[in-house]
């Protein structure tokens, strides 16, 4: 085992362009494993000594070793920074010192020193200010040429930049992966619901709208209203659409004659499917679904798309696939959306509001859409039932519904068409809806028995295992719910908090606090209202009108005095003996007087008027003669003196 000094000696005297890697590694291992810093100190001392040798090649080798250790150890850096002037003198030839021969090694020493020193300043200058000061000194006072060093540093810069970019890219990739996992989980959770909703919508469309194949497939179809122009009505008078042959015939006729058919279709009203009592349920279902799409699925899908578009395809090959599937979902939704619009089921609340306003005033204020509802929102039928009111004026076919048109042989009443065509569809619909009806019956019963609570965030987030932030209006960084920066879902604690409902129990109603009602000296009853105990009269007990305790005898004399006092100022009361109609109305207090009179005893509670002081008693007895005060005594004394 060699000491650091010996290792340095061997390293610097070996010759060669670069120090021996084995020995260098041994030296670094020595310095690394010695935590006391002695090895570092020894190595630094030996290196300074080697730098001081009068041979430029030795100095070059020593400088290379210094550079290696400098880039590794803080302790070594501190040592070097403390001895910078020495280093300048020995490696740069500063302070007028001259570099030793041989000349080519001396120039190499200077070049290497500049290169290393510039790298140190660039890398460690922020933490070791003295390096910067030393650089200024070398650059501006010693006029050391750092151009080559800067060039060399820049030359190595791509390597450093590449390393930095690598870490940056790694971080980004990791971030994207997390994002992708989150989005994928979200999609997996929602996809079934969305597809089910789309399927339901399409079933509804199948009921309401003819398929293109059906339209030209021989069934009496309800086609887009076409305004026929150019005098072709006469040729077209037969009832077309009866059969393939007829259609062929019509087509043949049309092909034979040059005709100009102008078809203008109002994009808002392509289909002429009116909502009637019979298909109102279908429309309701469509509206429910559309509502769901507009308010929940569509924003969700847009979020997914935005997130997935950010993910690089090379992060995960499945990302692209996922993106495609989400796009497919969105396209399907767009198609359904368009169909809904054609049906006049405006998905936009604004449009619905207008319709409602036009048709029925009291439908206003009714259906403010609840933005965060997961369940189907109950939507009232917005269009009036066609039975009571005249049909709306049609924008395309203005004569529709006019009595004149009924006589026109080219006109077929759409309702007739619909009834004739909707036969199988109707049965299908009913077959479809029967389990739903049962379900709703059960549901109804359940609903009746369910407790009614007001709507709140706990119901909004009911049963969700994770709540994604930033899609439903929750902020990613919320004041109370915490930050959801890594994955845009709320933490478990925050979710539980959201799903919890605070119920404020009403304070138990407290009746009026009863007065103490103990008789006071001045004849009144104690007006204090204490809960349990009056500070003057003890525990609050039920008392009668005179203030005597209702249960348990009070101390006789005090009760007597109190009763006497109470009776004095009590309002004149009518004896129940005089007013009683039945014996039950008699009060024993009144009877007591009578009984005592009968037995010759003095009436206890009604002393004679002589004993009755007329004035109200007060706590201060003004009749009492005041005690001789100091002033009186003084007056007496002075008068005595005068005498």
């Amino acid at each position, binding site marked *: 085992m060699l000491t650091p000094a010996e290792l340095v000696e061997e390293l610097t005297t070996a010759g060669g362009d670069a120090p021996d*890697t084995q020995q260098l590694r041994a030296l670094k291992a020595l*310095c690394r494993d010695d935590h006391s810093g002695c090895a570092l100190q020894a190595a630094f001392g030996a290196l300074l000594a080697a730098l001081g040798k009068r041979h430029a090649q030795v100095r070059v080798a020593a400088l290379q070793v210094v550079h290696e250790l400098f*880039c590794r150890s803080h302790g070594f850096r501190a040592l070097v920074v403390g001895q910078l002037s020495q280093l300048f003198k020995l490696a740069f030839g500063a302070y007028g010192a001259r570099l030793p021969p041989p000349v080519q090694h001396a120039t190499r020493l200077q070049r290497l020193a500049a290169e290393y020193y510039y790298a140190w300043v660039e890398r460690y200058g922020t933490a070791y200010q003295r390096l910067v000061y030393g650089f200024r000194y070398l650059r501006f006072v010693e006029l050391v040429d750092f151009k080559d060093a800067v060039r060399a540093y820049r030359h190595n810069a791509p390597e450093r930049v590449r390393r930095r970019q690598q870490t940056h890219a790694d971080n980004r990739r990791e971030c994207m992966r997390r994002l992708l996992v989150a989005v994928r989980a979200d999609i997996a959770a929602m996809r079934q619901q969305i597809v089910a909703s789309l399927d339901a919508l399409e079933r509804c469309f199948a009921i309401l709208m003819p398929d293109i194949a059906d339209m030209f497939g021989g069934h009496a179809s309800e086609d887009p209203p076409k305004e026929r122009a150019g005098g072709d009505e006469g040729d077209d008078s037969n009832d077309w659409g009866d059969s393939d042959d007829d259609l062929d015939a019509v087509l043949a006729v049309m092909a034979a004659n040059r005709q100009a058919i102008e078809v203008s279709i109002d994009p808002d009203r392509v289909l002429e499917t009116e909502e009637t009592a019979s298909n109102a349920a279908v429309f309701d279902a469509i509206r429910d679904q559309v509502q769901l799409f507009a308010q929940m699925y569509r924003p969700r899908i847009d979020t997914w798309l935005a997130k997935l578009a950010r993910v690089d395809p090379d992060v995960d090959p499945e990302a692209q696939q996922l993106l495609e599937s989400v796009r497919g979902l969105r396209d399907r939704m767009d198609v359904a959306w368009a169909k809904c619009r054609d049906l006049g089921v405006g998905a936009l609340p604004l449009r619905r509001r207008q319709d409602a306003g036009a048709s029925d005033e009291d439908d206003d204020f009714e259906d403010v859409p609840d933005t965060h509802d997961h369940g189907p929102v109950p939507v009232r039928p917005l269009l009036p039932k066609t039975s009571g009111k005249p049909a709306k004026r049609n924008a395309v076919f203005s004569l529709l519904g006019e009595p004149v048109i009924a006589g026109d042989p080219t006109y077929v009443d759409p309702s007739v068409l619909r009834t004739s065509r909707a036969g199988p569809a109707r049965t299908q619909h009913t077959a479809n809806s029967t389990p739903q009806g049962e379900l709703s019956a059960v549901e109804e019963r359940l609903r009746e028995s369910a407790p009614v609570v007001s709507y709140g965030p706990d119901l909004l987030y009911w049963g969700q295992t994770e709540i994604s932030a930033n899609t439903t209006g929750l902020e990613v960084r919320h004041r109370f719910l915490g930050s959801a920066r890594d994955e845009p879902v709320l933490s478990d604690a925050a979710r539980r908090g959201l799903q919890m409902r605070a119920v404020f129990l009403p304070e138990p109603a407290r009746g009026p606090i009863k007065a103490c009602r103990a008789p006071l000296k001045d004849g009144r009853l104690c007006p204090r209202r204490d809960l349990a105990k009056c500070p003057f009269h003890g525990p609050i007990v039920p008392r009668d009108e005179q203030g005597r305790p209702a249960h348990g005898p009070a101390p006789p004399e005090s009760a007597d005095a109190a009763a006497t006092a109470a009776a004095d100022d009590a309002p004149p009361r009518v004896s129940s003996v005089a007013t009683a109609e039945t014996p039950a109305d008699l009060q024993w207090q009144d009877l007591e007087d009578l009984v005592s009179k009968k037995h010759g005893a003095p009436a206890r509670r009604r002393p004679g008027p002589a004993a009755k002081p007329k004035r109200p008693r007060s706590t201060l007895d003004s009749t009492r003669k005041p005690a001789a005060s100091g002033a009186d005594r003084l007056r007496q004394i002075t008068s005595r003196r005068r005498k």
Partner: protein
Amino acid sequence: MGSEPVARIVRARADGSAQAARARRLLAAGAFGALALAESKRLARAHTAAVHSLAVDAAHGRFLLSAGADTSVQLYDLEAGSSARQIEPVQRIPAGAGHSRIVSSVAWYPVDSGLFTTASFDGTLRVWDAATMAEACQFDLECRVHCQAMSPTGAHALVAAASESAHIRLGDLRTGAFAQTLPIHRSGGTAVAWSPVSPYILASGTAAGGLKLWDIRQAGGHLHAFGDGADAHPAGVCGLLFAADGRRLVSSGADAGVRFWGVDAPHSLLTDVPSDRESMSRRYGAAGRCELAIAAAPGDEAGAGVVFCPNGDTTVSAIDIASGRRLAALDGHFAPTLCAAWRPGHAELYTGGADSNVLVWCASARAAPSEDATGLLVDTWSESESDGAP
């Protein structure tokens, strides 16, 4: 570090073996003596040649003026750079715009930071408006001015200038003319200092080493000369400074010796701190003087504090005023140090040197680098140590 460990001082105080005043003095000395280069703060290199003079304004302790051989004057706002890694000068007098030769001395107007004065080897003493960096007035001394000072009491507006002529001249800023002339040695003055307590007491040092105390109200001559007949500093006086209580005078000589004098007892030397370095010429270029800085905690009793004295080599000595011990040698410059300035209230020392740097020193505990740089302070040994390249 020459300061005693804090724990020992505290223990001695607990024993009762150290008086309260002494313990406090020792602690202050320890705190001021153990300075380190501030790693989180750095002044930009604005001078292209040696920095000869530094001044921190007494009013706020916020603005630092530096002037030097490149004839420029730089004004740093020391608080603006609290977040930045490097403090750039906020104002400057560019080289050549003001003085035409070395600026040997710069000083703030003691009352506020709206004015400052500079003295230069071009023979002028100029007064500047700090807000606009425009010259307000100028005194022409017709020979190299080494030092100038205004009374820190602010009682008058006299600026004393020590030049190569045989007189200290007092210029009055209110009239823009010289008001008084004090005859000193014909070798010329190198240093001048006003008493911080009495507005009329002035000390002067000459290149020949004489040190005299003046009362400017007495026309007859100086009050007394320090050094008991001999020259105070045989090699010449470099720097001169009154202690905060005005009762001690610190002088540094060209031989890097520092001496403490009692103002009231001129004939006896209080403390002599001889140079501990090999004889090194204090003269750097033509500016044969150095600026001292004195650091004392405000409100401390007499004698507590540390004098920072540029040694003429790359170090600045921290000398305990009471004991005269050299507490530390602050080695940060790469060329001879020429000036020092203490920033009161912040416990920061600024030193300037011939390497054109202005270094910031602060207490070791606060000298740690900023947080983003701490990552560079750790060892980065690789596990295998197989790769040679860092």
